């Protein structure tokens, strides 16, 4: 991936990742750019932490590429987007979302997932490199603000108006984090196990939910994570995952 002018690099990256050229054109363009059209690459999207320069992110990605320097990148809305032969090992100046590996002309399907991975990592204050497939349900929680908002309004928001509501919600959060083991969660919270049991019972009573039911427990867990993502209450538009047509 060498020998291209800066303008050509930007055009190739945009065509391959954003699909600004058709499938056949992408294959030809990748070949002309010196990219192995039968090889497998990953699409990435990277964002620096506040106060860090975008050039620092680019430098880290180039140094981490294998073979070293084998990277094609461009800037998009203040982020670095591009393709690499494999996911970068690490970065320290921000966060990188990585999509599934694909041939160059198919990266147009991988790139939205790289963006979703980065969005999820940013929302949950993660740093470093995160593949979409390794983030589990976090990208879904961040992407589907309609579902997240509905569950948050149902299970978490009402506790703002309840006496000791914050303590009850914190107890449920810690209990989930400890695999719903009362003794471990109580030790973490420095509470007597019976105090924790009482708070769990209060939550179930006020929210009208039985947390022994796996589906109900999952909804509450989702609502808590959505609340922790900082999206709750803001009702932003659904993310780049799209409206009713997530990939």
């Amino acid at each position, binding site marked *: 991936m060498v020998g291209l002018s800066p303008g050509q690099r930007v055009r190739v990256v945009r065509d391959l990742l954003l699909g600004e050229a058709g499938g056949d054109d992408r294959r030809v363009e990748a070949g002309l750019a010196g990219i192995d059209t039968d090889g497998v690459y990953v699409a990435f999207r990277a964002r620096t932490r506040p106060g860090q320069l975008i050039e620092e992110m680019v430098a880290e990605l180039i140094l981490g590429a294998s073979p070293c320097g084998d990277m094609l990148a461009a800037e998009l809305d203040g982020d670095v987007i591009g393709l690499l032969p494999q996911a970068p090992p690490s970065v320290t100046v921000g966060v990188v979302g990585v999509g599934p590996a694909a041939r160059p002309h198919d990266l147009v399907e991988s790139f939205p997932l790289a963006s979703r991975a980065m969005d999820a990592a940013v929302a949950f204050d993660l740093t470093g490199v995160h593949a979409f*497939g390794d983030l589990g*349900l976090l990208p879904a929680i961040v992407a589907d603000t309609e579902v997240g908002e509905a569950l948050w309004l149902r299970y978490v928001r009402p506790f703002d108006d309840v006496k000791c509501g914050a303590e009850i919600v914190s107890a449920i959060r810690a209990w989930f984090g400890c695999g719903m083991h009362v003794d471990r969660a109580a030790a973490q919270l420095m509470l007597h196990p019976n105090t924790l049991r009482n708070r769990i019972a209060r939550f179930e009573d006020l929210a009208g939910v039985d947390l022994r039911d796996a589906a109900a427990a999952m*909804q509450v*867990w*989702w609502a808590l994570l959505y609340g922790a993502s900082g999206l709750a209450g803001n*009702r932003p538009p659904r993310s780049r995952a799209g409206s*009713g047509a997530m990939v």
Partner: protein
Amino acid sequence: MTRPTEPVAGGRLLRAVAAGQDEVYRLIARAATAHRDGEPHGHTADRERAEFVRDVLWTTVDAARLASAALVHAVDTDREYLTLRARPAPGHGIDEFARALGLSRSRADGGGLGAVVNGHLVGFVTSRPRGTVRGVAGLGPARPLALLHESFQMATRALYTADRRKMTGVCEFSQLGLLPAILSDKATGAALCQRYFKPLGDTDFAVEIVETLRAYLSCGMHAPRTADVLCVHPNTVRYRIAKFEELTGVTFRGSRTASFEVLWALEHRAAHGMRPGSAPRAAAL
């Protein structure tokens, strides 16, 4: 009204302009109402109402245009509405169906309006429909008139979810839990299936593990209760779960995250027909 010669401060000037605008909208509305009342063909008024309904449900309508149109159609702009997207059961007329949902295609009974668009009954109402509904309706959350497009998007997702799960009656988006997300976010489901099911291979034993997994998670990860459901020995359940953990490299001890991810993957598999012959479960996630 402010006299032209009098100096006008910024705030007063804005109020004066706003008052003038209100008067213009009132005149437009009165003219439109007079035009509608004098219209010999009722279908013109019906068409205008349908266009108004379609505008507020599908688009972001300019506030001034919305206010004048709402006045023409006798819709209160100061209250919130629930949106609906619905389809009658085969053999049932759309007018009867609309009445059951509290929607009127001709007048704003109780403050809501409806229209038929692309074969669906769509509209907005002031309260959740009660009583028997012969068909299926997706219901979005309450929003002011200017934000009904947000609610309608959720009503549409609720109807889609209801269709996929063969539900009938009124299906409220906020009561569908995670089902709308599972149905729309195919990428997450595919990634989780890859992570949790691919390592199991494609054998009869893999099918047994998946069925055991489903029952185990439904029974709160309690081996004896799961064994009762599946009519097997509790140690068989423990063996299969241990095998799953070994093949996938996950553990259900510790955080509940893995169990929730597996639940999602199971629902994705069922919803997208990845297991031929297996019916989707009725319970909502």
